């Protein structure tokens, strides 16, 4: 089903939860709705479900305006953020409910419920009531209930938030499989970017009730169209610096050097973003700036190193006072890299990995060649580090001023 939202707005009294949202969701796609807490994701789903009515704007399902079509006629399956299992029914009955509403024969219902229960691994719990389930078990039942009727539109409000990684991955794959198989359009709200990235065909980023970006996961990750998206997508989040562009030169506040840009851009104040795993830690004095390691967080096979440049860096001409005062960067390095808290390190910022956004409106400064897709030669298993190795040549740092 093709879904179109046209200037959809939803207000609760004085609160505007969704604000003129215009979107088009291709049939059969799995669309992820990303955005900070309270940005209107659940509200959007509720409107798609037909539970809430847009205050303004229209929603179309296959070109039919459905603003006034009640939920039960929309053939929508939904996993609620709160699960909303029927407390008076057993797990079996919960899952069977949508099928009963379709008046399927009892045998068919049994079969499909058991099939579904197996899928979400609650087959042993079919006789329990929701209150006797753990959080994750409840969530899985909710998922089963939404999927069992093979809806035309699947709405998932953080359907996996209470599952452990493994189960989550498995469920994710199942959702994906079922969704593909049925060819249903699906909208997934998640706070988990990996999830969004992994299974979504299309990602919509919302903020304060508006859509601020959309695209394929790869596009949004590689070339975020605006600063909000850049800072929101990617984990750990980007490091942010300030600076200014003039022609092909980028002056970073707090850095004693210019960075050369591959192409000229309009002169402007810019926010400069760089992802932690593109930040390179080198020996002190060998990078663009020096700092001290203030925190190390282990993230499985990598660790997140926080470096504060702060006052230890000599004050620079042209650097904005603020930025220089407490420059703080995070770098993602292999878990077994020998970094210790308190150690002095150098930091290198590969220019091809920088994302530039105009300070004025947050829009991306497009630079042909920067952060574009590069073919990888030789052994396929090129580590991110490779890029670093390739780059020093591109960088000819000049003294600022």
């Amino acid at each position, binding site marked *: *089903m*093709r879904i179109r939202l046209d200037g959809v707005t939803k207000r609760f009294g004085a609160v505007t939860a969704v604000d003129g949202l215009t979107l088009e969701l291709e*049939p059969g796609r799995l669309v992820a709705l990303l955005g900070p807490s309270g940005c209107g994701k659940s509200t959007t789903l509720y409107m798609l479900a*037909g*539970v*809430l*009515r847009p205050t303004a704007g229209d929603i179309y*399902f*296959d*070109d*039919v*305006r*459905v*603003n*006034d*079509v*009640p*939920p*039960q*006629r*929309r*053939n929508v399956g939904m996993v609620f953020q709160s699960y909303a299992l029927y407390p008076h029914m057993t797990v079996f009955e919960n899952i069977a409910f949508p099928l009963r509403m379709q008046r399927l024969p009892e045998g068919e219902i049994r079969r499909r419920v058991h099939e579904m229960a197996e899928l979400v691994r609650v087959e042993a719990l079919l006789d329990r009531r929701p209150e006797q389930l753990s959080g994750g078990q409840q969530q899985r039942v909710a998922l089963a209930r939404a999927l069992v009727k093979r809806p*035309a539109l699947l709405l998932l409000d953080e359907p996996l938030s209470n599952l452990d990684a493994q189960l989550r991955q498995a469920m994710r794959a199942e959702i994906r499989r079922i969704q593909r198989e049925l060819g249903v359009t699906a909208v997934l709200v998640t706070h988990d970017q990996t999830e969004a990235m992994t299974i979504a065909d299309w990602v919509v980023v919302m903020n304060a009730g508006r859509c601020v970006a959309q695209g394929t996961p790869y596009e949004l990750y590689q070339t975020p169209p605006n600063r909000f998206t850049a800072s929101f997508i990617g984990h750990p989040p980007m490091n942010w610096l300030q600076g200014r562009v003039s022609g092909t030169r980028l002056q970073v506040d707090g850095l004693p050097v210019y960075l050369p840009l591959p192409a000229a851009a309009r002169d402007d104040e810019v926010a400069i973003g760089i992802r932690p795993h593109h930040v390179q830690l080198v020996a002190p004095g060998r990078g663009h700036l020096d700092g001290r390691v203030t925190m190390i967080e282990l993230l499985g096979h990598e660790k997140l190193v926080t470096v504060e440049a702060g006052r230890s860096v000599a004050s620079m001409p042209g650097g904005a006072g603020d930025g220089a005062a407490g420059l703080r960067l995070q770098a993602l390095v292999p878990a077994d890299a020998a970094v210790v808290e308190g150690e002095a390190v150098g930091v290198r910022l590969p220019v091809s990995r920088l994302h530039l956004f105009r300070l004025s409106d947050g829009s991306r400064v497009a630079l042909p060649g920067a952060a574009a897709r590069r073919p990888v030669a030789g052994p396929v298993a090129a580590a991110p580090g490779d890029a670093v190795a390739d780059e020093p040549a591109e960088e000819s740092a000049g003294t600022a001023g």
Partner: protein
Amino acid sequence: MSESGAGTGAASHGRAAAVLAAARPAAPWRLGAGFLLPFALVVAVFFLIPAVLTVILSLTDVSVATGLRDFRWVGLENYRRILTDPVAGLVLRNTLLYVGATLTLFNVGLALVLALATAFLPQRWGGFFRAVWLLPRITPSVVYVLMWKYFAAEPPYGVINQVLAALGLPAGGNWLYEHPWPMVIAINGFVGASMGMIIFSAAIQAIPREQLIAAQVDGAGTWALVRRVVLPQLRWPALFVAAYQTLSLLASYEYILLATDGGPGFYTTEVWALYAFHTALSNYFGNAQYGLGAALATVLVVIGLVASVLYLRFFNFRQLTQRPRIEVS
């Protein structure tokens, strides 16, 4: 609309579109109307109309003697009679005392205590106590009052006096005579408490367990739990019980009629509804004056109205009746 849907989309999409298009913008009022209609009809016909009729009758001299045909319009004559009645003031005072005391002490106060206390007992014992408290309600009023009369009676019949004597305390005379108000209030209160008790109990039951546990974890002891978490969530039931019972008490007279008949002495425990019964409706001797009775009832309604408005204000009615959250259906 369905044409365009079927024309543009693939076959399956066309079908879905047709289904959606067929689902005409639902009339959200339809279910509401369906649900309200039988109720509204019954209430309007069998309650509202009689109520209005009653107010109209209060402007007539309709009585048994006039029959329901030959009565005359007498304007506010009935109200004049009420105003000039030398005991009306006393009766009104009695009514306020009766309603106020019974309501606060028993119908809401004791009801809450019972609901809370039984909630803290194991399920089975809680049920037992609630069942016991329900007994007065299911006991025919005549029998119920009879029991009280035997309790209150003078020696050697009275149970209270017998118990007092057994405890070595000085026994009195007839308690209904010597302490008419406490007895009247208790007699009504012991019946009245059960309604609030049941309603509060069910409401307490409806509070999610985790919330109460959270409160305990947050450091709330029994009292704090009750006061800060349970009681605030009983606002609707409390409003309801208070308002409803106020009105019930205002309109009730049966137990007083049976227990003291407004006595002892000079209208000591005569309340408005009983007064209405005595002056206008009691048919023992001759003529029931329906018109005057209706006027007395209307006065009662006005009092009840004022009380209700105060309640609704006090409990923030507006907030208790929030907008529905499902907007399309």
